[in-house]
């Protein structure tokens, strides 16, 4: 039975951890500093991932962030909350 082509996912989006947070600061290169609503890893540098609903995020906006599996300080904003 042939396998569907493409690298098997090891980690990746399906395994990523989603956490709620609040945008604190807008950084250069479309990055944002997001304060997480958890005790550990209080804030992460996050880039935008996803649709146009994420354009013009402003400090104070509530978002959901996917945390990078190998770098605790980075994440991807996947949607507004």
């Amino acid at each position, binding site marked *: *039975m*042939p*396998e*569907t*082509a493409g*690298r*098997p996912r090891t980690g990746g989006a399906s395994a990523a951890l989603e956490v709620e947070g609040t945008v604190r600061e807008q950084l250069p290169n479309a990055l944002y500093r997001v304060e997480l609503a958890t005790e550990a890893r209080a804030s992460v540098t996050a880039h935008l991932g996803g649709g146009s609903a994420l354009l013009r995020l402003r400090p104070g906006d509530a978002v959901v962030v996917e945390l990078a599996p190998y770098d605790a300080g980075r994440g991807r904003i996947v949607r507004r909350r």
Partner: protein
Amino acid sequence: MARANRIVVDTLDALEAAAVPGTTTREMDRIARECIEKAGARPAFLGYRGYPATLCISVNEEVVHGIPGSRKLREGDIVGLDLGCIVDGFFGDAARTVAVGRVSEEALRLMKATREALFAGIDACRPTRRVGDIGHAVQTHAESHGYSVVREFVGHGIGTSLHEEPQVPNYGPPGRRERLVPGMCLAIEPMVNVGRPEVEVLADGWTAVTRDRSLSAHFELSVAVTPFGPWILSEPYPYAQGEAEAAHA
């Protein structure tokens, strides 16, 4: 693993004999399951990622992953039979495309070229060569006959899982991808189309057909890389035992 592959190929022999006009694809699936269970093995595809049957049966323009059902085989069809089983924790996986009754010249040529492409790929399974050499050999052979090879599905490592690393594409430049070393086991499986290489998956979520609905054939064998070259796992070990011990010493 040799035992698992032997059982798969013996079952394919039985299925090939049963592929006559009027047989339903569901009946073929039943034969496959009985044959595998009688040999003391378990079907490997049943339940794999939700696949609902023992056998993948892909008629004419169907490339792979055809689900058995009420369809009756007809004179002139070519039928891809793909089968896997598990014995003692090891997997066997093999496939072939067979003719139902008399089929067209074109179909015979396609089947012959695809089978030859498989063996061209198997011949590349030697230490010092790379996974890309296998795909290159397959593609070169198939395209020399004016056919195309499917990109969306690939061969794979096999062992204690059905699909293991590395992926083994049936196309691409030589000298690339993973180095082949003795002990690696690979399922090599060219899927070759008369028309264009593109395929699409039908609404059942499994059955892959050629987008231009041209005929497609599929042959597969599981092969181990030995210090002396390929060992087709469904066949006896092809190299002298003394030689093997000398090489491992």
